[in-house]
């Protein structure tokens, strides 16, 4: 069993090494190698997941990685219910996306390089999930950041792509600095970073203040990685990378690392209500904020990026409020339907030769029927319509928020749900329904349905985003997924748990979803009130939303530019060159100046030398007189 667990990680590593080292020779087989590596990894993960479902937990140590004086950091892997869910999500979804990218990246010159990075990414993500200590999680954390840097900047000759990659890495590093501080505190207080040594002793070791500090520090890391409010700017630019990358990294796996981390350290968060409050409110604000921006955006990938932001906000609400199982459940369902949405968008882009703006698209239903159906399914799921996956997980979060005594967050959640439903169906109606906006554009581009290798994974994800939610149904008195995850991340016991009837909550959120779809239907299909009329009635708000609250410009002019200016003109040109270097050269200058002074004494006239001698004699005898006689 121990080697099987290790194998899960080793397979992607082997795939990475094969493609990496022998990239030239495995020119067009790289995709197959990478996909099969993932497949094997998934298969070798099935048995351990099954065992975990049956109730036992595996925690193996392989070797001591870093001996830190008295205590040492082991390299070990751990599978419990929480990481089992994540394991299933990561391995399965990445496997699908690997198959999909075989088709998507067919003609690309960097074909082998793409799959090398993808495999390295999955390896680091698995390390992050299966690592048995915070430090190993951090290794995965940074590894994942590195791979997202490489993959976003995959088409490195495009300036925007490499800039976006660099921006992603730097913003992640800000988060990582916070994560490191959290890990330092934990290591200092618990004298170890492995989960087994930390979580059982939380109550004896930590005081609420230190728990808050650790919680907030770790959450800073989560904000960086899962693009929460202040540090989300990199996610929208990350769309520069290939679409399967966006779907894998920026929808299903990497961005959810923060949620997993908060769920994993639930013991610490339970100790500090303030940290929980911060997580929940940041999550709620990001959800609402991102949803507003998605309302007006034209570019399909950007819409999906903002919707990811807002869904992540939901997950943080779930985890922040204390209903950890709901957060993780939503994470799982979100991976399915958001992955599908991105793949669908990829298929559309693939056939439209990279055109992204919704103005050019319309009535694609006729040309790409399968993608259309799948996108509708995914949109229904994300909008939270009953039988689909999104409904159960989102409803669980909102119910949790309400029961745990956060009514405002519940309201914000419902409003965002409405907006989500609206913008998703705005996207679906404008792209797939209605008529062609640009006459016979499709003809020139001879738009056609995506090839088999791309549609199959999409269908699989489509099915999953339907049945994925059923795990959250009430079966024999308790929700299976809740019981399963609660083994490692028990829901927070709150004193006054307000009891609202399940049915009412479910019904309410379903109606909100339907309302959202209806308004989109009214505006975009029936055109009773055209989108343009709304736009110019709320002119100022519309422009504000259109260019995303001018956040990027703000960051650029008020943080990046002055930063560079200060370090260039002040720190370098003045402080370093003038003051410090000048100080050193000053010594040289002073000695030169003194040398010059003495030179003036050498006038050439012998008599002047005689004068100096006599002055010397006088001084000497004078001193002799004063002191000795």
């Amino acid at each position, binding site marked *: 069993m121990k080697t099987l667990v290790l194998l899960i990680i080793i397979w992607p590593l082997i795939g990475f090494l094969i493609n990496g080292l022998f990239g030239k020779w495995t020119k067009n087989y790289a995709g197959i190698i990478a996909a099969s590596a993932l497949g094997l990894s998934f298969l070798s993960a099935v048995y351990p997941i099954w065992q975990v479902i049956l109730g036992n937990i595996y925690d193996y140590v392989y*070797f*001591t*990685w*870093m*001996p*830190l*004086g008295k205590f040492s950091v082991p390299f070990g892997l751990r599978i419990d219910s929480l990481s089992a869910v994540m394991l299933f999500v990561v391995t399965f979804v990445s496997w699908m996306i690997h198959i999909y990218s075989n088709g998507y990246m067919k003609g690309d010159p960097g074909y082998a390089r793409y799959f090398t990075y993808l495999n390295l990414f999955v390896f680091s993500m698995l390390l992050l999930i299966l690592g048995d200590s915070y*430090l190993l999680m*951090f*290794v995965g954390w*940074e*590894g994942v950041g*590195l791979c997202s*840097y490489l993959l976003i*900047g995959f088409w*490195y*000759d495009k*300036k925007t792509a*490499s*800039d976006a*990659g*660099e921006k992603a*890495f*730097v913003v992640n*590093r*800000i988060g*990582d*600095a916070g994560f*490191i*501080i959290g890990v*330092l*505190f934990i*290591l*200092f*207080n618990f004298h170890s970073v492995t989960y087994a040594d930390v979580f059982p002793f939380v109550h004896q070791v930590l005081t609420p203040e*230190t728990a808050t500090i650790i919680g907030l520090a770790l959450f800073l890391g989560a904000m960086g990685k899962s693009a929460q409010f202040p540090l989300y700017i990199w996610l929208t630019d990350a769309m520069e990378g290939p679409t399967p990358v966006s779907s894998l990294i920026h929808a299903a796996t990497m961005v959810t690392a923060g949620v997993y981390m908060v769920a994993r350290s639930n013991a610490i968060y339970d100790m500090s209500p303030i940290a929980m409050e911060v997580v929940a409110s940041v999550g709620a604000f990001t959800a609402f904020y991102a949803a507003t921006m998605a309302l007006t955006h034209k570019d399909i990938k950007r819409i999906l990026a903002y919707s990811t932001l807002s869904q992540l906000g939901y997950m943080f609400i779930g985890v922040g409020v204390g209903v950890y199982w709901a957060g993780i459940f939503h994470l799982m369902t979100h991976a399915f339907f958001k992955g599908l949405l991105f793949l669908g968008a990829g298929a559309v882009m693939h056939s439209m030769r990279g055109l992204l703006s919704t103005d050019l698209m319309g009535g694609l239903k006729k040309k790409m029927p399968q993608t259309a159906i799948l996108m509708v399914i995914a949109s229904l799921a994300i909008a939270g319509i009953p039988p689909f996956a999104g409904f159960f997980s989102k409803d669980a979060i909102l119910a949790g928020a309400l029961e745990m005594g956060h009514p405002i967050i519940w309201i914000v959640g419902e409003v965002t749900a409405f907006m989500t439903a609206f913008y998703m169906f705005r996207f679906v109606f404008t792209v797939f329904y209605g008529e062609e906006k640009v006459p016979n554009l499709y003809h020139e581009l001879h738009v056609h349905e995506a090839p088999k290798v791309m549609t199959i994974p999409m269908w699989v994800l489509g099915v999953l985003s339907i049945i994925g939610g059923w795990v959250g149904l009430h079966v024999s008195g308790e929700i299976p997924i809740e019981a399963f995850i609660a083994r490692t991340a028990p829901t927070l016991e709150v004193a006054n748990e307000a009891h609202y009837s399940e049915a009412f909550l479910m019904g309410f959120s379903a109606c909100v979803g339907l309302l959202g779809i209806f308004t989109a239907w009214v505006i975009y299909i029936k055109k009773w009130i055209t989108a343009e009329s709304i736009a110019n009635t709320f002119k100022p708000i519309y422009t504000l939303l259109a260019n995303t609250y001018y956040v990027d410009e703000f960051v650029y002019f008020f943080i990046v530019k002055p930063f*560079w200016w*200060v*370090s*260039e003109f002040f*720190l*370098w040109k003045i*402080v*370093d060159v003038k003051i*410090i*270097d000048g100080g*050193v050269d000053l010594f040289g200058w002073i000695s030169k100046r003194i040398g010059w002074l003495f030179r003036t004494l050498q006038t050439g006239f012998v008599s002047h030398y005689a004068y100096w001698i006599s002055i010397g004699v006088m001084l000497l005898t004078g001193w002799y007189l004063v002191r000795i006689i």
Partner: protein
Amino acid sequence: MNQLHFPILSTIVFLPVIGALLVSLIDSKKETAIRWVTFIVLLLDFLVSLPLFFYFNSSTYQMQFVEKVPWISSLGMNYYLGIDGISLFLVLLTTFLSPIAQLSTWSGITQKTKEFNIVLLLLQTGMLGVFVSLDIFLFYIFWEFQLIPMYLMIGIWGGPNRVFATMKFFLYTFFGSVFMLVALMALYFLHHAYYHEYTFNMVTLMSQPLPANLQFWLFIAFALAFAIKVPMWPFHTWLPWAHVEAPTAGSVILAGILLKMGTYGFLRFNLPMFASMTHQFVDIILIISLIGIFYGAFVAMVQPDIKKLVAYSSVSHLGYSMLGMFALTTIGIEGSIMQMINHGISTGALFLIVGIVYERMHTRNISEYGGLASLVPIFSVFFMIFTLSSIAVPGTNGFIGEFMVLFGTFESHKVFAIIAAFGGLFAAVYMLTMFKRVVFLKPLNPKLLKLTDFNLREWIYMVPLVVFVFWIGIYPNTFLSKMHASVNHLIEQTKITNVNPNLNGKVSFDNKVIIKKSGLKG
């Protein structure tokens, strides 16, 4: 005690000198012969230094492979060599980097190759001497000796205004070491006044510290000399000049090894011998190294010249090392030693990379590069690996050093560690912006098209560096296990702060430990 009963340290130190003699016999026109002989001698030196690692007994903190021969016994000077956990890896780093640096100059240095190789060999002796000598006077001799070859190397084979750079380098370091000489003498005589024994022997001086009030000026003098060498923040301005003008091999050795002498000096002299002063100065030096970290990073961000950028990054990296050292915790000091070794490898490698490109393109400013990834893929992969190692991405060696330093500092001074944690962020900023502008984007500059990728020779001297980057990153235990005993002993020595040996004879220690706990309570 000398396990091998064979003067291994002397052979390591003086083998290059013999090599230099050998090279001087060869006719200067036969350049390939000269290069081969030098390379073989340096390689031999590395092989001879390997037993140090294998026979090293990591359980005791005593000096090992000791060679003690009375030199001027009337003054108490003896030819005393030996290494312990701290200096073992610095010796290995020197013998490891020098053959690589020499190999990189085969096509780089064309005029006066014979003199260059001789100078390189002498430099090797000087450096090794510093790390192994346990007699302060011998230490000082080697300390001064290693300046001269470096001076020549920058002065003769350097860039355009090399004379200014080498003059500044030499005088600046010399200015520091003059203070050290005075402090050395003062230490010698004060030691006699209290312990009635004239000795230059470092180990005895370490074990018999002076009373606190005397240590103040000694500490400052030594600290100044080593701070200039490290270089710590205010004394760093010679480094960019020296690096920009030095030839590739010169830069590699300067960054890889010479800078470590400063930190090594702190570990050997300031911490053990002037323990009570160390405790007073902890806060100041921590602040200075913090400034060094951030200042180095900020200024590196805006450098147009790659070598200057990497030079300022060295200031930042060594700021970490000093931070870890003056946290005065076992992990902090081990982290700082690891950081020294990592910096040696990653910055040495970065300079080699710049050297390779400089040899082909003869320009160092970033704006003229761009799009190397499509032209020279293998080069870009190696460049990427070393950039990651210098940003301290986990899995590479940089992370181990940085994390240990951060944790070490955290144990004693929480606030400093928290601030330092954000230092890594700026490291990523400057390295990645440089990396993006050099490797990614489209190759616009027509001259870039004639770039050729790695030839066999470059492969040979790049691969070992990559091996070490990942070896330390994934399994640092091989290195750390050797250090524990010596570092713990050093920490014990820094604890002896209350020493009042009365003048007339018998010395009375009372080891009551007063460590001024500074910094925020956890």
